[in-house]
């Protein structure tokens, strides 16, 4: 029971990180109907920017962690957003009217570019960061097994929920969100009604990338090590989360992220840790084959 509870906490934390990345996939898929394959690598870029910024702040003597975290979040979100914007502008926008697989191929190309760029510029070795937010609560103790809820896990889960609610509200209530929903339904009609489609799509990428940056910061703080390859696997799992929750739906992405996080953690805890990725990938295949519209999504109608 205690073991189960501990794994539940760990799974939800991991799921929150996946959920944050999944929101980026789901928003982009909702609006232009393509898998932004490079999104996982945008997350990785966010984690690297955060790492550099953290070390910089620590080296200039800023050791008050909440302030450092705030600065790092702002810097990582804004600079990762530039990457998201650039990727869309360079690799996707010119192909918007092209055949369906074209932007997917450029997306794979961008993913390779980002991975190798970071590998060359920052080195292939794993980059460690010292634990910045130690400590936590003891939730319960039983027969010498202590269930821990660390401050880091609380921060991750709370921040994720806040961001999810904020972004749902942006989509539901602001003019930008209305423009996004309009583009999602019919891009041509939205343009005719005065929506700046290019700008809306760009802003979607900017929002997705900054959420991925937050996920990158959280990943960095939670695991303490990153390398240039973290985006690939995390990206596929987050995409699985987005599909599982129903692509296009932000609460769905969060829910899917939580489920994937729980599956992965419980699989490692109770079965074999070697096959945890297989579990996540199998969920992806099963969901796409048997339940393509996901848990909270709308079924897609095939138009000729």
């Amino acid at each position, binding site marked *: 029971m205690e073991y189960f509870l501990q794994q539940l906490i760990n799974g939800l934390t991991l799921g929150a990180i996946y959920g944050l990345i999944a929101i980026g996939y789901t928003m982009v898929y909702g609006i232009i109907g393509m898998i932004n394959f490079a999104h996982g690598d945008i997350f990785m870029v966010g984690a690297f920017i955060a790492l550099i910024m953290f070390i910089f702040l620590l080296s200039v003597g800023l050791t008050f962690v909440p302030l450092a975290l705030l600065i790092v979040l702002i810097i990582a979100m804004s*600079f990762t957003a*530039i990457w998201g914007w650039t990727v869309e502008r360079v690799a996707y926008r010119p*192909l918007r009217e092209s055949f369906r697989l074209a932007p997917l191929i450029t997306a794979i190309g*961008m993913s390779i570019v980002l991975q190798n760029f970071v590998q060359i510029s920052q080195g292939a070795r794993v980059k460690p960061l010292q634990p910045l937010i130690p400590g936590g609560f003891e939730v319960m103790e039983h027969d010498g097994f202590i269930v821990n809820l660390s401050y880091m896990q609380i921060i991750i889960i709370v921040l994720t929920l806040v961001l999810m609610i904020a972004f749902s509200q942006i989509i539901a209530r602001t003019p930008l969100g209305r423009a996004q929903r309009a583009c999602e339904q019919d891009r041509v009609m939205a343009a005719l009604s005065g929506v700046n489609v290019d700008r809306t799509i760009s802003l979607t990428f900017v929002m997705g990338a900054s959420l991925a940056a937050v996920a990158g910061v959280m990943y960095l703080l939670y695991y303490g090590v990153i390398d240039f390859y973290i985006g690939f696997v995390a990206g596929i799992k987050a995409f699985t989360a987005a599909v599982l929750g129903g692509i296009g739906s932000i609460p769905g992405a969060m829910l899917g992220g939580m489920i994937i996080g729980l599956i992965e953690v419980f699989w490692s805890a109770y079965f074999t840790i070697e096959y945890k990725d297989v579990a996540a990938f199998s969920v992806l295949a099963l969901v796409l084959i048997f339940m*393509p519209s996901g848990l909270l999504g709308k079924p897609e109608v095939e138009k000729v």
Partner: protein
Amino acid sequence: MPEPSRTSPSGVIAKDVALTGVLATGLFMFLLGIHTEDVPGTLLLTPRPWLLASTVAIVMAGRLMLHMLYWWPSDPPTRNMRIAIALLAPLAPLFFVWMLVDDPVEIALYLAGMYLLAAALLVLRYARGEGPSPRLGIAQEKLVDFWDRFGHMFGGVLVVIACALPFMPFTDRYILDVSIMVLTYIMLGWGLNIVVGLAGLLDLGYVAFYAVGAYSYALLATHFELSFWVALPLAGLLAAVWGIILGFPVLRLRGDYLAIVTLAFGEIIRIVLINWYSLTNGPDGISRIPRPSFFGLELTRRGDPSFHDFFGIPYSPVHRIIFLYYIILALALLTNIITNRLRKLPVGRAWEALREDEIACRALGINTRNTKLTAFAIGAMFGGFAGSFFATRQGFISPESFTFIESAIILAIVVLGGMGSQIGVVIAAVVMIGGFELFRELEQYRMLMFGLLMVGIMVWRPRGLITAREPSVYLKEKKAVSADLVQEGQG
């Protein structure tokens, strides 16, 4: 990249270049401007201001050249002025580059690279048929005409060159090794071309079949002592079965979902190979895989019977390499011949129809399930052959060789060659695999270049460099309306 208005005044261009600079600074400030250095226990930040400044300046100069030479604005008014600006642009970052490398040779290399880029931009502009000089336009027409008349012989010439290569005076073991590698990728590219280029099914897990072929041969040969020539067809068959097994669940999926599920399958197979220790020996891999024999003659020093004894020639280790070279050449040509024949059969035509419009296919009564499955199975079979060859050439295989990157390289070759084009795959494989082998010191930039070229070529020419999307079969004459001009359906 979309084209700014042809009449952009200088002010707009200047602003655009400045914005590019700001953007590049934002992009590279952390990742290039600061390096994280590993020191025991922690990380050390070292600023790299000259690298950042050079990169930003080069990006700005490149953008200016793109404006002047490719988009060809009407302002500045004369052609010579535009070219002059473009030729001066690479000199602007010179100071930063000098501070960065401080080596005349590298500066010269930098300038050569930039002027090569300028030339490339001009060529690309002419290639669009908008060259300012009519003479060049005529030259281009002649080139196209020449290609139409003699292009079909090009493949034959390549085959002759490939057959004669081992006996050329300049050929040494190194060239043969590189050629074997290039041919392996050509074969893989042709195999994937069936799935991606012809049937339009974006398969990101192709390396799984390569792995199935390699492991099938390795296990059959080491456990049952089957010879290469017996195990090869079996390995191909097993790979084809796996193609059907993995293809069956994804039949209903559309393009991008299919891509990501095949990727997941590829990763699953790799993880299983790593962890199924009792069968595959896990990450340690399988070693001492037997070499192929030449009609029962072994190509080793102490083989019994051995190749050199039988023919009464002195032993040379190169014989085995030459033999391997001819095996992969034959396998690759077999792939090509079968593909070209299949394209003329109903199933091949159904593949191409499926690529263009799946819904129309179904409306016409084409069995899309069988069509897709044959594409998966035949593509996988050739991947399996290539895998067996890989195993017997290396003598050692491990899951390391079958990562997603390998799938991405094969896909990049197919994409760069122009999906569906057989000769394009050859050119892309020779340039991308062979070219980088010759510049070993640039090895770490290979994947970066692959990625950039994938993006660049898709943006510039979404149908690939050499487009062969004209139908394989036509009545009496080729129609002017090729598939290039027709919007593709969502397959």
